[in-house]
């Protein structure tokens, strides 16, 4: 009997310790941030913020690549009693969804100056920074590299292209953007033609990039970090910004987006973190990190593999319309994938 009492005491003490030690602090000098940008890239930035400001960062990370649904659903579920101050999204569509659900509140940071208007919400519900470009990754043994996403439907490349599952991640956004740009009929024809041209489906952009690097396919459509990563590892691939010609639709740029949560427990620290993320220095760090993201502020130093935003012809994108379209085309996409 005595033994059980000891075990019980031990459990109670351990429980009390847990409560005291690992409580998500309210009222202290902290900022709570939920993050959908890959942790390997976002965590160092948040650590720097902590060091430079003395504000403790408490973060929850998510991972799109590994198919988690954590952070967005958590933000939505916590709406009535918000725990987060800031959400750092890896693309602006999620920001639009949160705006429509009334979960975010406007904040126009002084550091948002200089970021082109196309990458911010006009009312200040979210602000974009450090963008990923959707690029073609091409194996270097291919001489006449494709320069447009139309290569996916060109018989010349039949059976030689691969694309990530359009039900997940940035590929979904890309397809939805094409639906908005071209209209449903043309976009559906394009998707159908892709299928007929033998385009294979991979589980993620990273896997697509590996399949091209290993020579199983000639090219794919991925995020620029997937391409830059393989290039830095010395793999036989190159990166092509698609559709840059005069009539071209341009390259799709997906910035990170940062926003303040409505009813945030530490709003002033939240604003400080947003200012920090929107600074040129953060954009410089994200450009040199392995995510190789393209700065949106003019005049930010960047590695040689990247192009300045002013030199890229970018695709016109209406984020609210894309957010809506994304939901609309899910049944079509499921069918297309063959689920």
């Amino acid at each position, binding site marked *: 009997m005595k033994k059980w009492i000891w075990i019980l005491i031990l459990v109670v003490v351990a*429980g009390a310790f847990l409560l005291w030690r690992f409580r998500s602090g309210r009222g202290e000098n902290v900022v709570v941030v939920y993050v959908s940008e890959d*942790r390997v890239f976002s965590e160092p930035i948040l650590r720097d913020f902590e060091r430079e400001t003395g504000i403790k960062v*408490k973060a929850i990370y998510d991972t799109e*690549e590994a198919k988690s649904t954590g952070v967005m659903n*958590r933000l939505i579920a916590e709406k*009535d009693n918000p725990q987060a101050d800031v959400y750092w999204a890896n693309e602006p569509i999620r920001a639009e969804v949160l705006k429509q659900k009334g979960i975010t509140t406007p904040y126009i940071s002084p550091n948002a100056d200089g970021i082109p208007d196309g990458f911010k919400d006009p009312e200040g519900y979210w602000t974009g920074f450090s963008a990923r470009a959707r690029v073609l990754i091409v194996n270097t043994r291919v001489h006449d590299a494709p320069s447009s996403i139309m290569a996916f439907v060109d018989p010349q490349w039949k059976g030689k292209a691969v694309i990530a599952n359009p039900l997940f991640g940035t590929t979904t956004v890309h397809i939805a953007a094409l639906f908005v740009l071209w209209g449903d009929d043309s976009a559906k024809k394009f998707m159908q033609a892709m299928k007929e041209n033998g385009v294979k489906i991979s589980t993620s952009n*990273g896997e697509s990039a590996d399949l091209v690097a290993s020579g199983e396919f000639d090219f794919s459509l991925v995020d620029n970090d997937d391409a830059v990563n393989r290039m830095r590892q010395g793999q036989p691939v190159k990166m092509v910004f698609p559709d840059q010609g005069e009539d071209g639709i341009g390259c799709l740029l997906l910035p990170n987006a940062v926003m303040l949560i409505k009813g945030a427990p530490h709003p002033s620290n939240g604003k400080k973190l947003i200012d920090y993320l929107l600074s040129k220095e953060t954009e410089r760090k994200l450009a040199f990190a392995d995510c190789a993201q393209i700065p949106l502020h003019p005049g930010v130093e960047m590695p040689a593999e990247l192009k300045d935003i002013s030199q890229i012809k970018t695709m016109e994108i209406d984020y609210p319309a894309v957010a809506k379209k994304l939901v609309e085309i899910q049944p079509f996409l499921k069918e297309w994938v063959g689920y």
Partner: protein
Amino acid sequence: MGKRLAFWLVVAVLSAAGLLPILYMLWRSVSVNGHLSLSYYSSLLSSERTWALLAHSITLATLTTIASTLIGVPLGILLAKTDLPLRKALAVTLTLPLLIPPYINALSWFYILGRDGVIASLMGNAVSNITSAWYFGLGGSVFVLTITFMPVVMLLTMAYLGTINPELEEVGRLFSKWPAVLARITVPMILPGISLAAMLVFLLSMGEFGVPTFLRYDVFPVESFTQFSAFYNFGAATAAAVPLAVITAILISLEWIFVRDRTYRLKTASDSGFLRIELKGWKRPILIITLIFAFTTVILPLTVLVARSMTLDAYRKALSIAHDSLLRSIVYAVVGATLLVGIGFLSGYFIHKREFRLWRALDLLTIFLFALPGTVIGVGLIGLWNRPSTDLIYTTPLIILMGYLAKYTALTSRITVSTLAQIPPSMEESARLAGVRWLNRIMQIVVPLSKPGILVAWIVGFIFCLRDLGITIMVYPPGYDTFTVRTFTLMANGSPQLIAALSVMMVAAVLLVMGAGWAAVHILRRR
């Protein structure tokens, strides 16, 4: 504490942690824009795709269960009942895959069977093309899930073998050889344990999403997943999870009807000795076969994993970025497993005794929760507990512990039920007649007799808390993640060396904890 009070304590804990959050979610699944509607269900059930995916999931779960049982039961018998050398080491080794996230297991096998894998470099591309084609699909999914979940069957078989009465076997041995005794006496006696293990493997593999997705085999949980990830529609996501729970309910009913009543008559005492099978001339060949099996299914993929993390730098980095979360994981899992054993033992006791009318509801609820995706329970917990008045629960690790209780009580409860099925009720009954109070009867008679079962329940609870991802990622207090969550979130674009190093660290940490526990038990016994 009286029996009635204990019963209501269990009901209260499970309601707070599981029932109410799930009712909240079920309510959302039938209320569309504020109106009562079954539209989520009708659109789900009217789609052909739903049925095709369900058929996939059931096929995958059935094949995995059959394979795990066919391998796990003989292994359990070999390791618990024979004089095979290296039994303990083999048992620990063969359990390792259960400790590693299934996705990582799939990845390490990809390094072996994939087109550019170990097979390719050893036997050329012609062979690796065949292995790769086989690996990506149903075959590979069954293979990885069997290796991952087989230890559940093996461990439970071992545990129940330790509690059977040797007298029956002795009598059997007078007339027949061991194979016949095993088939007609030993295995039927541990049937509750085996059927429990099979059911757990079935549920685990049916709910698994990461491995089949990686291996391109479309399964039903993807439905609920896309409702969460693409639409953020909690109602539809819950509706899409319900078919899994319904299948579970059917399974339990079948078990209620068939297995448990059959074994009810086989209760025996467990206090006298243990009959060990002498393998004699078979010892060497069986040992060799078992070693080869352990080597190919566990050591080889682990070696590949370690080889990929071979730089000291990867380990230094892994340790520096994850040591705090590793410590938290272990603390949470130790506290979680202890709570699970406490609540699960009581719940199992009441289910076994069938004295309170609600026993069926208790059994059904725990298994139902076990079958639901972690995200559904997680969102339910947030909906229920994220309020200013209950901050003490939601903003602290208490919420994680509640999640563990919701999701995993089925494990410890069911292990207890199967354990108690082998203890004669006469002992507790005579103590009752002698006027011993209920709590004392439990503590002094039932608990000591169920020790092996309790120990297994604790280990299984510990492992499942430690590897939990679905619930933890939904509810952990910001800044205080667990090791599994951290490994998972680092997996996106993290270096393969780092991920491999983290997985190896996880295995090492679990072995250390288990080793420490084992040493502590031994030291205590010597005293």
